[in-house]
C-alpha cells in the first residue's frame, strides 16, 4: 500500500507594530468606531497619493534579519489590481517581483533534531478593510479602519511535513517576531493570519502534486485541525484512485463543521495585472542601515533558551515555558538576578506567576517582589505554604513582602522550645493517633504533622516540626 507524504507551505500575514498606517497618518488602533481612523488617502478618494511609513521599512528589514533572510537593497512596490468591496482603490499596493527580503529560514525542533524551514520571501503590503455581515440585515457594512494597516507577508518553502510541524513553526515564528518587536502576533485579533497550502504525494517522490489553499483559521489549534482534516481528505481521494477530484482551489476552514469547504469562486484565477506603483519611486536601502538593524535585534527565543538552560540549569521544557512570552522570560531573569535562586524562581514562575498571568493578562507584581519572597523563604522567615499566602496578597494589593509578613505576623516559627511545646500539646490531645502510629499506622504521622502545623497556624518550620515530632514519637 502506498505511503503518502504531506507537503505544506505557509503564507503568513503579520500586522506591523506601527503608530500610523502604511501610506497615511491614520492611527492603527484596534476596535474603534467604524471608519473613524480613515482619511482621503486610505479611503482611496480621487487625487490622493501614498507616502511610505519609515517604520514599516525598518520593521520589515528587522523581520528579514530575524529570519535569516537576504535583504534586497533595491526593492519596489507594485499594484495588485482586483475588485472587492474591502479594497478602496481596487488595487492593493504590495510587492511583486522585487520583495524586500528573500531566502531565509527558521530552525525548528523536530523530536530533538533541528529542521530548517525555508522562507522564500517577505514582502510589504497594505491591509484591506473589513466587511461586517449582520445576521438579519440584507446588506453588508464596510469598515475601513483596518484598510492601510501595514502588513508583511511571509511565505515559506513547502518544507513542512505535518500539522505538528506547522504549529511548531508558527509558534517559533511568533516568538521571533514578538521578541523583535515587529508585531504582537495575536491570531485571535487578526494581527497574525495564516493560510495553508497543502498537497499530498507518495513518499520518496520529488514532484509536487495539486495543492489546495486553506483559509480562515483563527488560532494555532484551528490550523492544526484544518491541516489534519484536509490531509486526510486528500489522502482518502488518492487511496480510492480519485486524486483527480483534487483541484487547485481555495477552501475555507469551517470551525463549527470541522471541515474544509470549497469557496464559491465567481472569477477564475485572478489576473492581477501587476505593474510597478507609479506613485512610489524605488526603495533603496543601505548596507549600513541593514547592519544597524541586525545589531539592534534582541536575543531571540532559541538563543535565549539555550543560554538560560546553560546559565540557570533549566530543563528544555522549563526554558520553553519561560520563553514563550518575552515578558515572562524578562521577568524571570530579573527575579533570578536578585534572588540568586534560578531553580526556585523557575518553580514559582511556572506554578504561580504564569497562572496569574493567564487569568489577568498582566503580572501585577514586580520581579523584585518575587525575588524578595523567594529570599525570605530561603532565609527561613516564612515557609513555602505561608509564602503562597503572601504571594496572593501581593497580587491583590500593592504591599511589599515585608509589609505583609510584618502586619500579619507570618514569620515562621523556628524556636525549638516553642515548637516542642506545640508538639507536646498535640501529642497529648491526640492519644489515639499516637497509639495508631505506634502500632504501625504510618499515616497517623501525617495526621499529627497536620495538627502541629495547624496549631502553629501554618507558620511552624516544617522540617523542624517533623524532626521534633519524630523524636518525641520514638521516645
Amino acid at each position, binding site marked *: 500500500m502506498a505511503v503518502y507524504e504531506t507537503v505544506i507551505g505557509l503564507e503568513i500575514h503579520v500586522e506591523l507594530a506601527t503608530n500610523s498606517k502604511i501610506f497615511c497618518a491614520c492611527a492603527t488602533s484596534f476596535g474603534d468606531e467604524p471608519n473613524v481612523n480613515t*482619511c*482621503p488617502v486610505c479611503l482611496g478618494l480621487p487625487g490622493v497619493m501614498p507616502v511610505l511609513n519609515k517604520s514599516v521599512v525598518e520593521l520589515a528589514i528587522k523581520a528579514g534579519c530575524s529570519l535569516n533572510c537576504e535583504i534586497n537593497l533595491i526593492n519596489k512596490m507594485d499594484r495588485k489590481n482586483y475588485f472587492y468591496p474591502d479594497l478602496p482603490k481596487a488595487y492593493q499596493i504590495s510587492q511583486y517581483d522585487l520583495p524586500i527580503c528573500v531566502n531565509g529560514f527558521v530552525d525548528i525542533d523536530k523530536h530533538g533534531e533541528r529542521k530548517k524551514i525555508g522562507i522564500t520571501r517577505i514582502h510589504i503590503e497594505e491591509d484591506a478593510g473589513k466587511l461586517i455581515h449582520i445576521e438579519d440585515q440584507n446588506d453588508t457594512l464596510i469598515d475601513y479602519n483596518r484598510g492601510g494597516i501595514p502588513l508583511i507577508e511571509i511565505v515559506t518553502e513547502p518544507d513542512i511535513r505535518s500539522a505538528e510541524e506547522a504549529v511548531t513553526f508558527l509558534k517559533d515564528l511568533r516568538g521571533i517576531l514578538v521578541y523583535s518587536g515587529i508585531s504582537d502576533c495575536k491570531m485571535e485579533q487578526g494581527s497574525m493570519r495564516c493560510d495553508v497550502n497543502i498537497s499530498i504525494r507518495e513518499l520518496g517522490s520529488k514532484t509536487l502534486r495539486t495543492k489546495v489553499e486553506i483559509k480562515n483559521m483563527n488560532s494555532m489549534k484551528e490550523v492544526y485541525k484544518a491541516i489534519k482534516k484536509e490531509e486526510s481528505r486528500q489522502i482518502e481521494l488518492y487511496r480510492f484512485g480519485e486524486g483527480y477530484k483534487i483541484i487547485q482551489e481555495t477552501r475555507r476552514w469551517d470551525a463549527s463543521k470541522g471541515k474544509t469547504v470549497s*469557496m464559491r469562486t465567481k472569477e477564475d484565477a485572478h*489576473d492581477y495585472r501587476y505593474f510597478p506603483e507609479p506613485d512610489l519611486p524605488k526603495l533603496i536601502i543601505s548596507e549600513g542601515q541593514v547592519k544597524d538593524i541586525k545589531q539592534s535585534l534582541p536575543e531571540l527565543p532559541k538563543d535565549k533558551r539555550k543560554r538560560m538552560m546553560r546559565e540557570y540549569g533549566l530543563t528544555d521544557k522549563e526554558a520553553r515555558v519561560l520563553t514563550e512570552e518575552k515578558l515572562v522570560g524578562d521577568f524571570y531573569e530579573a527575579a533570578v538576578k536578585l534572588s540568586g535562586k534560578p531553580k526556585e524562581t523557575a518553580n514559582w514562575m511556572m506554578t504561580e506567576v504564569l497562572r496569574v498571568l493567564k487569568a489577568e493578562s498582566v503580572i501585577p507584581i514586580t520581579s523584585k517582589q518575587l525575588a524578595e519572597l523567594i529570599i525570605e523563604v530561603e532565609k527561613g522567615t516564612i515557609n513555602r505554604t505561608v509564602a503562597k499566602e503572601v504571594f496572593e496578597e501581593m497580587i491583590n494589593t500593592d504591599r511589599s513582602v515585608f509589609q505583609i509578613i510584618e502586619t500579619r505576623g507570618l514569620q515562621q516559627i523556628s524556636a525549638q522550645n516553642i515548637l516542642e511545646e506545640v508538639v507536646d500539646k498535640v501529642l497529648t490531645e491526640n492519644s489515639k493517633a499516637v497509639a495508631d502510629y505506634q502500632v504501625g499506622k504510618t499515616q497517623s504521622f501525617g495526621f499529627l504533622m497536620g495538627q502541629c502545623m495547624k496549631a502553629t497556624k501554618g507558620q511552624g518550620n516544617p522540617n523542624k516540626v517533623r524532626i521534633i515530632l519524630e523524636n518525641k514519637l520514638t521516645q
Partner: protein
Amino acid sequence: MKITRETVKEMAALAKLRLKEEDIETYVKEFTEILHHFGQIGEEDLTQWTDEDLNSESVRLREDKACFFENKEGLYRNIKNRQGTAIRIPKIVD
C-alpha cells in the same frame, strides 16, 4: 493577437463594465485598429533597454506619527449609503 468579441467581453468584465451587444462590433474594430497601430512598438529593437534606470534617489519616507483627519464630515458626505459611520452595500455572500 487577434481581437475578437470574446476578447472585448473579457476586457469589459475585468474592468467591471457592461457593453451593449450592438457596441461590441464597434469596439472590436476600434481596438483592432488601435492595438495594431500601437503594437508596432514591438518592431523596435529594444533589447538594450531592459534594465531599469538607476535613479539613485530612494523613495522619500514618512515619520511614523499618527494624525487624526479632522474633516470627517466632509469625508462622509460623499458616501451615498451609510449606517452610522459604516458604509452600506448590498449583502455580499462569500
